[in-house]
């Protein structure tokens, strides 16, 4: 059954005495066996649902707080740092940092090669001999 037709089925067929306290209907409901299909209810439950929706409709104004940050902190504490161990997990992937680190390391290697590589050593030896 579709949602709409389901809702339509819940709508009462007639509303005799609408607006009065439906004690008889409530009693009938209270004595009904569990599992019985209540969609064809004799009293106006649609009014109740409408009231409820109107009263609670819309997102709550309240802030859900920093759910993510608090959950991460609690998981970090509980796991003793195994999860969400630092700020990296909450920050965007720091690709630039990796690239800079790689570039610096490459520059260091090149410098070392010039200083200590075959040409560098020869230069040092030549300089010593010249003295």
């Amino acid at each position, binding site marked *: 059954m579709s949602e709409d037709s389901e809702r339509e089925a819940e709508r009462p067929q007639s509303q005799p005495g609408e607006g009065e*306290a439906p004690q008889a209907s409530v009693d009938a409901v209270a004595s009904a066996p569990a599992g*019985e299909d209540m969609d064809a209810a004799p009293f106006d439950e649609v009014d109740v649902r409408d009231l409820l929706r*109107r009263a609670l409709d819309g997102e709550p104004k309240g802030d*859900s707080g920093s759910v*993510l940050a608090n959950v991460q902190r609690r998981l970090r504490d509980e796991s003793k740092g195994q*999860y969400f161990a630092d700020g990296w997990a909450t920050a965007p992937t720091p690709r630039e940092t990796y690239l800079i680190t790689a570039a610096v390391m490459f520059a260091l290697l090149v410098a070392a090669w010039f200083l200590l590589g075959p040409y560098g050593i020869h230069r040092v030896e030549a300089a010593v001999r010249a003295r």
Partner: protein
Amino acid sequence: MDEEEAKFVGRLIARDETAFNELVVLFERRVFSLVLRMLGRQADAEEVTQDVFIQVFRNVESFRGDSKLSTWIFRIGINLCKNRMNYDARRQSRRHDDLGDYEESDALQGGDGVSVGAVARPDHAAEERQLIEVVREALETLDPEHRQLVILRDVEDLAYEEIAEVTGLNIGTVKSRIHRGRSQLREKVERLMLQRKVRKAEP
């Protein structure tokens, strides 16, 4: 569970922190709304919302994919709310109604009658506010089992089948309890409206 969701769950099971962050961002408002409506208190709702996601993180391996991921998360939320309500009942804690934080719906118009049928056709702004208060008060005093089902159906708009999955009840029981919850709610609203009317009429 579709293929995309299965992949996502796989990432969660692999403890992919980025996937978990996405999950929290995706569901936090819905979970918070549900929990706040169930508990009625902002501070408790914030704490329980966090608990829900911590439970998800801890137990995601136990998610078998029989239902949607959202249904499973809702089920955790409902269970935690139940636990909290039972705990509160034991401690007889006084309820502080933060439901006033809900946005007041423009559609809501108060009434001057006592019956639910009559109050749905309102005349004055003050009576509108009074009606909102009364409905929320009545909902607060509804027993937790009926309250959760009525909220899931009438406010969260879940289908009976989804509610049955979330609560673990069979559909027949869900329908009958929702029906009873609504009738109890209606009685309470009518009684509270009558009380207010009488109080107002007293010199």
